[in-house]
């Protein structure tokens, strides 16, 4: 089969690889009908997250049709079922899964010794996302083996196009969780840094969860226009001061809820010296993340507020203003997404026409063009916001 394979920093190739096989009774094989490039795939493209090996298949936003099931899948899945594959692999049986904390499933990381060392305790296995999270082959391919398939799936009905359903795999529940864990009140202002795909989903989620005002921060006109269409007031940080504008829009109180949809690769600007220093330190490998957005959120958030972090951080962040964080009584809520905790509700909202996540797609291309699209997406060429690949 064809698959997008990681060969090193900025080197992804469309290789021919052997087809996946059932390895365990709980496995299923999916014929991929659609998959997407996620913003967090770019961290792997840049080799900023440790634990990738040449030959790893990329991709964790995938959907398709079940073509083979193991003997232990029971009757939960059968050949011909249409499924979206959540990016977190879950067993559905461990203590964390029973609590709904699916992204920290204690069973599915087959290389848990690495995660135990890196994080203190293991987290769930993830598709196509380094050997720290199991080194499972990803879904930017023609076929995908889904381990623990009896639990790791979202069954979806026929008759709804892939484009509306595909993002149940990651970015839609990720944006939703980012907003939901803010405990939004009807009087709240929610400020969202980053108007990439997750940021766009977080904006719509905050609106659907009843925020009084949503403010979106970015520097790319196409993304800001999409954010505005979704109901956000926008701030272009290249043209105006984020701090001053947020103060103005909240009558000097600061936003009650702040969401970081940027993560470890924040924008570097000469007018923001901390971003230059972070970039230099990241380059010589004395700091793994560029946490400018975290610093700004802690500084600007209203005391007693909540900071939600769906953006990916990989290791160590310097100079976080913990004094302000502590004295303002802020709370930080973060984590990989507990996808299956949210997807029943989100699928219902899609079916009822409350939201159509396909609005974010700007490019649809064959899988074979995937490597070039990593560059287009990274460089924000052709006003690219979200790429869908068709195997």
């Amino acid at each position, binding site marked *: 089969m064809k698959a997008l394979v990681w060969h090193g920093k900025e080197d992804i190739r469309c*290789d021919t690889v*052997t087809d996946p096989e059932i390895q365990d009774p709980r496995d299923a094989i999916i014929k991929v009908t659609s998959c997407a490039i996620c913003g967090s795939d770019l961290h792997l493209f840049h080799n900023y997250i440790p634990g990738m090996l040449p030959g790893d298949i990329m991709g964790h936003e995938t959907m398709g049709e079940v073509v083979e099931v193991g003997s232990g899948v029971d009757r939960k899945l059968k050949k011909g079922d249409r499924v979206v594959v959540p990016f977190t692999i879950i067993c559905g049986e461990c203590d964390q899964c029973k609590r709904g904390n699916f992204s920290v499933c204690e069973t599915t990381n087959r290389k848990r010794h690495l995660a135990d060392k890196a994080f203190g305790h293991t987290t769930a296995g993830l598709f196509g996302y380094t050997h720290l999270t199991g080194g499972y082959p990803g879904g930017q391919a023609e076929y995908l083996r889904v381990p623990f398939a009896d639990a790791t799936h979202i069954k979806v009905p026929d008759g709804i196009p892939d484009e509306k359903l595909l993002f149940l795999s990651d970015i839609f529940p990720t944006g939703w969780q980012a907003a939901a864990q803010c405990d939004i009140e009807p009087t709240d202002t929610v400020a969202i840094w980053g108007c990439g795909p997750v940021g766009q989903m977080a904006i719509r989620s905050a*609106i659907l969860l009843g925020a009084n005002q949503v403010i979106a921060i970015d520097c790319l006109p196409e993304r800001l226009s999409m954010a505005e*269409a979704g109901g956000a007031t926008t701030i272009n940080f290249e043209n105006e001061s984020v701090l001053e504008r947020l103060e103005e829009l909240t009558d000097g109180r600061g936003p009650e809820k702040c969401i970081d949809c940027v993560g470890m690769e924040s924008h570097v600007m000469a007018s923001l010296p901390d971003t230059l220093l972070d970039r230099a330190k990241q380059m010589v490998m004395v700091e793994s993340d560029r946490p400018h957005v975290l610093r700004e959120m802690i500084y600007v958030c209203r005391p007693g507020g909540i900071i939600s972090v769906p953006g990916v951080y990989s290791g160590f962040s310097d100079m976080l203003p913990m004094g302000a964080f502590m004295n303002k009584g802020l709370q930080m809520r973060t984590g990989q997404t507990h996808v299956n905790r949210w997807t029943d509700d989100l699928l219902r909202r899609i079916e009822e026409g409350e939201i159509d996540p396909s609005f974010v797609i700007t490019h649809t291309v064959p899988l074979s063009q995937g490597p070039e699209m990593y560059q287009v997406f990274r460089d924000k060429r052709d006003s690219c916001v979200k790429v869908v690949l068709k195997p």
Partner: protein
Amino acid sequence: MFHFSNIVRTKGDPKIVEGGPSLKRPEDQLARALGWFSIGLGVVEFFAPRRVTETLGMEGHETLVRTFGVREILAGIMTLSVEKNAGLWARVGGDGLDAAALLSGLTADNPKKGNIALALLMVGGIAMLDYRAAQDTKPQRPPRDARRKLYPNRSGYPKGIESARTAAKQIAANATAGRT
């Protein structure tokens, strides 16, 4: 065809049968080679500055050579990073500094001035490669003033944004009523 990466595959996982084309262009390979060269030269300058000054007949300038070594190492790391273009331009600037330092040693009373002339030639050649690689690896991000497509009609709410807001308010009102 044999692929090294297949050795480390977990048993049962897909293995590469035939590799596809790489995204790496010749200029990327050149940048990588220059990055490693920079680090190698920097290490020599930092750890053996006396050998360098003796070869050039410029004894007494060891601190300068060591400083240049640090510069070479940093530029090399930058050239090997995602920001390779910045690293290559840093190397072009460094080539200028190298040339200036060498020219200062090209005096009539220097018995090793032949070596300095040779070094200048080498710096010139490397500078040309650095310049070429820097030109060819320019980031392909569109300039800030480039025309961009805008997406003002992509709300994502098939029933309209007001309907979404109203539904959210209704849910909040119901929740409040349920609490009281």
